[in-house]
């Protein structure tokens, strides 16, 4: 049995999944002061009548990290950077950094060494920091100087946490790695406390199953990994929803999924059964990071969106001024249109019709006004879908073949989940001229997504045969290439070994791995080929542990 928990802005949901069925679901208000309270309450509710020892996995999508950042509950972090020559970075970071000399170049070669005395001097200014982050340019190509600096700093920093940029990702982008390392250090102790509390609470309930934390890209990570890279647990809500869609609807054709809630619609695109990932990491408080996420777009339209006229234009959202009139609110909302149009069956229909009369006046019937509102809302959602597709299409590529052989993404299916999906998704699908699906279980889709999302993990192997070395940044490895003829298949094989090893260490069972990207260049010097640079990035394939074909329990829509 899988236990999935989603801590949302308003409600915290828990579900228990057993054998393709959701057998329990619980909803409790989110307790913002202490997330543990609502988590344990949701868990207790969902476990009523079940044996807690039968739970085989617990997975959490939580706002603990997001809240820490949004509410400014960040630890004081001492940031040390090794930028070498290039862009001036000091004014672009969340805190002013201590700049260390030293430089590793694009091939991962140490060009200038770091100086111990600078680290000591930096520490003197940063003594009272709770945690530290160290980031070096091209440390993903050779983490050596970050590790050296960390070892030196460790002598003074004692047991305080030190985050390294290279351990967060093996991808290029010093600025993003530095921001990521900073935020990782800043939320580190807050997350440890949370993790300790969650573990203790589960132990109390005799749940000894392994605990996983959802990431922004919809993969999960074992709690032990989350404790080292807690920043990955940011902005997980939309990812939980998307992986819930995967298990409920298994989109096989190119699709669009919409999670339509009270005030927003989250859009995701699907290809070959998987959601599309964002080309770039997310931004935290305006600072770009290397934290991977899904390719999503949010538009300010939901069931509670305010409907009104402004300068002779019908406006919908993004603001909410309370619930629908049919549910006791004061102003017309999109949900009132659903009720008046007979698309959903809740609330006070008379009040919904009054709302329609306020908008449509005497000349239009209630149904005409309702359809007009729904049409307007659907138009805005379709525009946002098209904008997301264009944004994806406009993303630069660096090979001629990729530029020339492009095929347009044409969705064939709209999948809707969330409270307001029933009222809007058919209209969106109709506008796009394609089919739609409203899978059951959409009301607790996030908790379902968390329950079933597979753990993921990645490694980046970069071999430079001219230098005769390879690196695996995420593992802090730099070693000699193992043999004379070392080709791309060998790099892939090596990458897979490291990935499986790293996964095993974290306790992740690997079903399948996949290649995220690879590059191969011949190094030519003086018209002679002297070696190759080969990079490959592999990951444990994301997905869901099981599909869900039904439910047992009450209140399922």
């Amino acid at each position: 049995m899988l236990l999935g928990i989603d801590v949302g802005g308003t409600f915290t949901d828990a579900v228990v999944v057993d054998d393709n069925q959701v057998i329990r679901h619980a909803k409790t208000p989110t307790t913002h002061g202490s997330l543990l309270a609502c988590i344990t309450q949701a868990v207790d509710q969902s476990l009523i009548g079940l044996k807690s020892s039968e739970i085989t996995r617990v997975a959490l999508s939580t706002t603990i990290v997001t809240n820490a950042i949004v509410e400014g509950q960040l630890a004081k972090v001492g940031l040390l950077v090794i930028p070498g020559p290039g862009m001036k970075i000091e004014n672009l970071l969340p805190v002013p950094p201590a700049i260390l000399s030293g430089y590793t170049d694009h091939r991962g070669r140490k060009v200038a060494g770091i100086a111990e005395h600078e680290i000591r001097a930096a520490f003197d200014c940063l003594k009272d920091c709770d945690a530290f982050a160290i980031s070096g340019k091209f440390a993903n190509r050779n983490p050596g100087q970050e590790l050296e600096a960390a070892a030196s700093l460790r002598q003074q920093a004692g047991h305080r946490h030190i985050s390294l940029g290279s351990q967060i990702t093996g991808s290029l982008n010093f600025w993003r790695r530095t921001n990521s390392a900073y935020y990782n250090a800043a939320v580190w102790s807050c997350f440890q406390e949370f993790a300790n509390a969650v573990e203790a609470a589960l132990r109390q309930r005799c749940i000894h199953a392994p605990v996983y934390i959802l990431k922004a890209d919809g993969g999960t990570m074992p709690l032990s990994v989350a404790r080292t890279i807690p920043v990955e647990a940011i902005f997980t809500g939309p990812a939980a929803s998307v992986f819930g869609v995967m298990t409920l609807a298994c989109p096989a054709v190119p699709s669009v999924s919409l999670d339509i809630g009270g005030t927003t619609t989250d859009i995701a695109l699907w290809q070959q059964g998987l959601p599309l990932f964002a080309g770039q990491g997310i931004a935290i408080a305006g600072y770009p990071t290397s934290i991977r996420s899904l390719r999503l777009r949010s538009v300010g339209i939901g069931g509670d969106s305010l409907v009104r006229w402004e300068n002779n234009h019908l406006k919908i959202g993004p603001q909410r001024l309370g619930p629908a009139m049919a549910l006791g609110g004061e102003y017309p909302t999109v949900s009132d249109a659903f009720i008046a149009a007979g698309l959903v069956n809740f609330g006070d229909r008379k009040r919904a019709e009054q709302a329609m009369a306020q908008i449509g006046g005497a000349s239009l019937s209630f149904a005409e006004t309702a359809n007009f509102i729904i049409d307007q809302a659907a138009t805005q959602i379709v525009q946002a879908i098209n904008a997301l597709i264009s944004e994806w299409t406009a993303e630069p590529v660096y090979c001629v073949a990729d530029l020339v052989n492009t095929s347009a993404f044409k969705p064939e299916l709209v999948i809707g989940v969330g409270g307001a999906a029933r009222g809007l998704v058919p209209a969106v699908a109709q506008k796009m001229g394609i089919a739609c699906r409203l899978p059951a279980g959409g009301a607790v889709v996030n908790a379902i997504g968390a329950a079933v999302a597979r753990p993921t993990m990645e490694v980046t192997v970069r071999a430079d045969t001219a230098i005769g070395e390879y690196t695996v940044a995420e593992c802090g490895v730099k070693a000699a290439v193992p043999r004379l003829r070392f080709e791309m298949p060998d790099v892939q094989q090596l990458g897979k070994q490291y990935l499986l090893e790293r996964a095993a260490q974290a306790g992740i069972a690997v079903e399948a791995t996949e290649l995220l990207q690879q590059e191969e260049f011949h190094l030519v010097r003086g018209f002679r080929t002297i070696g190759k640079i080969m990079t490959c990035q592999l990951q444990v394939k994301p997905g869901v542990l099981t599909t869900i074909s039904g439910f047992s329990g009450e209140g399922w829509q």
Partner: protein
Amino acid sequence: MKKQLGLVFFPAFDWAISPTHPERQERLLYTRDQIVEEGLLDLPQIQEYKPRLAEYADVNRVHIGVPAISPLITEAHLVSAGGAITAVEAVMKQEVKRAFALVRPPGHHAMRMVHGTRGFCTINIEAIMVEYLRKNYGIRRVAIVDTDVHHGDGTQDIFYHDPDTLFISFHQDGRTLYPGTGFMEEMGSPNAFCTTLNIPLPPGTGDEGLHAVLDGLILPALADFKPEVIINSAGQDNHYSDPLANMAITAQGYAKLAEQLKADIAVLEGGYSIEQALPYVNVGIVLAMAGLSYAEVVEPDIQRCPGQSAATTAYIQEMIQKWQGIWRARHDLSRQAKLAAGDFWHRNRSIYYDDSGIYDDQRERVRMCPHCVGYHIIESQAEHPGQGLVSAFAAILPRFACPQCRKDGQDAVHAAKRQGRYQHYFLQDKEQDFLEKL
């Protein structure tokens, strides 16, 4: 809000002239590494653009491919020309203040008539961009400043008879480097006199010499010419570490040049020190064009950069003064050149295509018309390896051609076709915007 810089980055990681050629997949690899690693593409001042594909019509607006352009080029050429067009569009649509097309393959050695590839170039991406700009945005006066170490002989050829295009090229002296042209005396044909400025610099010229030329000659000439658009053919092989040339410019020198030139659009040309120079020079140019500090963009091996000798400094000073004199007297000199030419200006040239092994014997004539810049005839006899002689006759009708020149140019190509001494006949009508093969 308008961003400072549009960056069209296209390293063409799957394209090479041949596996070990300087124009190979690896050329912009380390530049990509540096740009991405710095995080330049994430800066709020910079917008990255995906290049579009240029259309054959865009290419034929400039070039006369023999027997046609399509068999001579690959999709990569259409992407790099398209990248330049994407850059100019971003500026003209006011999405960005300036743009940099950091693309390959390069183009500045490609001349109007194209038989093959020379100096790694097959089609001239800046020229295609300029004519696109004129066709679609009604721009007339354009300046192109070529800062590649090699003389931009292709761009010079294309605009040699066009008084609306100021072409300035500084480069390592043609007596010491490919393509062996670009001397001060090449100043444009009489109707476009002194809209071609060549500044051949001695080997060993450093940042000091480059900036003396910029301040003493290039910036004043630009101020006098008053172009609507300034384009920089931003080759980077003047760098002290470049394997194909012998100059001593640094990333700081190039970045400061970009800052002061204030080009609306820069387009990458050459630059083959792919590890020691390009990552730093490109980061410097990108930062300078985006209005950001480039003070810390310094090559790790900067101590290898030789200083500029006193003799070189003196030589450059003297040349600047000589040029300043010519520039002041350019209107008189232009009248004299027209008088000397008579009814037709003509020249014979031998053009070598080093990448294709083709020798072209070219004869050009331009009508010295009092009413317009005059129609232009190219007669070409090119020896192709393995194919023998490929010959072509082309008449080019300029923009704003007078009726007489339009008629005479058309008659000339039809008469040549009747005589039948050539294999291919072309009419390039720049006014009506078409290239016709007769």
